[in-house]
Each structure stands twice: as structure tokens, then as C-alpha cells.
């Protein structure tokens, strides 16, 4: 008797875990995004023909490039933060500050990259 223990994705995403939980969710999105990108990339080179050109046009699209650059950069910087905290557990007391530093590094680098991608795409 009783309700099942299953936690749906929608319920999990609604949990108010604040800043650290947001980085966890974005880290997973980044990982999935890269997996999708690599799969499309490999498929495109095998498929060839019209379908291949179509697949290529997806990942050459500047909107997709903005997305994939987010995935790679966020996954890398967040992964570095987690690795450092895991290697030096004492630093885990300063997790909040570590997340601020992460955003302080990520936002300007990503902003610059988005600027360059958009500028190039719009014929700059």
C-alpha cells in the first residue's frame, strides 16, 4: 500500500536546490548535448547524400554552434570545479564561492564566443 517512490523528471527539476543544483542540471544538459553532437557528426559522415548534407547543416547552423559551445564550455569549467573540490575536500566548505568563480570565468568567455559566432554568422 502507498504511492510508488518514483521521482519523475518534472518533479526532480522542480526541487529547489538553488545554485549548486542548477549547475548540476546544466552539467547534465551539457553532457547530453555533446553526446548528441558527436552522434550527429559521426552519422553525417556515414550517411552521405542529401541526408548527410541536411545533418551537416544542423551542426553548422550558428544557433546550434551557440548551443554546443555552451555545452562544451560549461561542462568543462563545471567539471573542473567539481574535480578540484573532490581532490581538496577542505575547499568544499567554500562551494558557494567556487560557484561564483565558475560563473565569473564562464560568462565572459562564453559571451565573447557568442559575440564572435553571431558576428561571423551575420556576415561580419
Amino acid at each position: 500500500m502507498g504511492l510508488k517512490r518514483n521521482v519523475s523528471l518534472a518533479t526532480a527539476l522542480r526541487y529547489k536546490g538553488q545554485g549548486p543544483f542548477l549547475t548540476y542540471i546544466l552539467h547534465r544538459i551539457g553532457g547530453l548535448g555533446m553526446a548528441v553532437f558527436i552522434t550527429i557528426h559521426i552519422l553525417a559522415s556515414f550517411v552521405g547524400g542529401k541526408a548527410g548534407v541536411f545533418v551537416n547543416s544542423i551542426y553548422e547552423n550558428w544557433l546550434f554552434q551557440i548551443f554546443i559551445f555552451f555545452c562544451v564550455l560549461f561542462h568543462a569549467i563545471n567539471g573542473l570545479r567539481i574535480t578540484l573540490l573532490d581532490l581538496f575536500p577542505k575547499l568544499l566548505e567554500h562551494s558557494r564561492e567556487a560557484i561564483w568563480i565558475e560563473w565569473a570565468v564562464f560568462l565572459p568567455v562564453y559571451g565573447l564566443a557568442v559575440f564572435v559566432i553571431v558576428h561571423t554568422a551575420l556576415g561580419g
Partner: protein
Amino acid sequence: MQVTLKIFRYNPEVDKKWHYETYDLDVDEKERILDLLELVKGHHDGTLSFRRSCAHGVCGSDAMRINGRNMLACKTLVRDVGDKITVEPLLGLKVIKDLIVDMEPFFDNYKKVLPYFINESPLPADGKERLQSPEQRARFDETTKCILCAACTTSCPSFWASDDYLGPAALVTAHRFIFDSRDEAASERLHIVSETSGLARCHTVFNCTMACPREIQITKAIGELKMATLTGKVD
């Protein structure tokens, strides 16, 4: 002040599905969420079910999701959560009735880490205490504060995915004994927590640390355990 309290309701004897019920209450902003639940149970609907015992943040029986986040109902004031309050049961454990969840899987995991003092050596010559320096005692002080409320474990995405995962609370208890200089079963416990359903499932998400009503640095304790399994050192 006027508050709207929305409560997750499920009675296995009459309901096929859970639902919310909403109560408009006139309360003081310094009252606790537990007081509001008592008010509803006493004056609006006596069938409302929830756990509580000490009402002072000591027994750990009234952890629940308050406005989407795990907290103790007896330590959360109305003024800290606002006038629209939603109360739901903990995630990742079966709901038995309303806000009461089945704590068995949580305590099963707790038992796996041997949550008791182990020392088979003969007592010291005076037959009294096994002495320990203040520094040795301080080493695990933080993790002695756990009240087993389950707020941490049920905020953890790895536990939501599978209740095989030991979970933060069991790991906090493992830490409490592993780093106790008087205990002699550190290597046995390190072996238990390093199995696949243990430390490897912690992805340093921090939900546990944010949820702990005792402000235990849970992720740090788990980090120290991870290091101890790598180095084999527990000092």
C-alpha cells in the same frame, strides 16, 4: 497574517491518486509550519497525517518539502517562506499517507554502514574510558550532529534514481565512526562505502548540504571519505 497552505494529501483507503488540499489560515508570522499543520489537523481535518515528536529540531521526524525544498516543519517559520505555502512529502520514498513516507529503505541503508561503535580491544588498565584528545574528538564532531531526518538523502538526485544508493545520511554516519580514533572498524566501513552503491554515486550536487537542518557540511564529509578510500588514511 493570512496564509494559503496547500498540502499534499493521499489516503490509501479512499484515494486512487494523490491530490492537494488548500486551507486559508489566519496565523502569526512567527509560527512554524508545524504549528500550521497542527492547526489544520485540530480544527479543519483530523485525518491529516504527518510525523512529529519533539517539535524542537531534535528528533528528526518532521522533514518534508516546504515550498519545494526539504526542511524541518518545526524549524521553519511562516515569515521565512511567505504567505503561499506548499507542503509535500519527501521525495524518493513511498508515501504511506499524506506527509508520511516509508522510512524503511532509508534506515536499511543506514544499517549497512555499521552505525555503532566497534572496539574489540580490552579496556584500558583502569577499566574505565577509552581516552581521546580534544583534537581527535574534533575530527568527527560535525558528523555526530546528525538527527537522521532524511532531508539530505531525499534531496539527492542519485537517491531519487535508486534507493540502492547508501545516501548522504548513511555516509555521514560512516564518517562519524571512520574518523573516530577509538573505533576499530574503519577499514571495514571504507570497504562498504566504496562499493558501487556508495561513494561513487555522489556527484557533488550539494542538495544534501543545502537541506541539512543541522548545517552539517555533508558534501565535505563525503569528500573526506572519498579521499580516505583513495589514500587508505583516516587521520
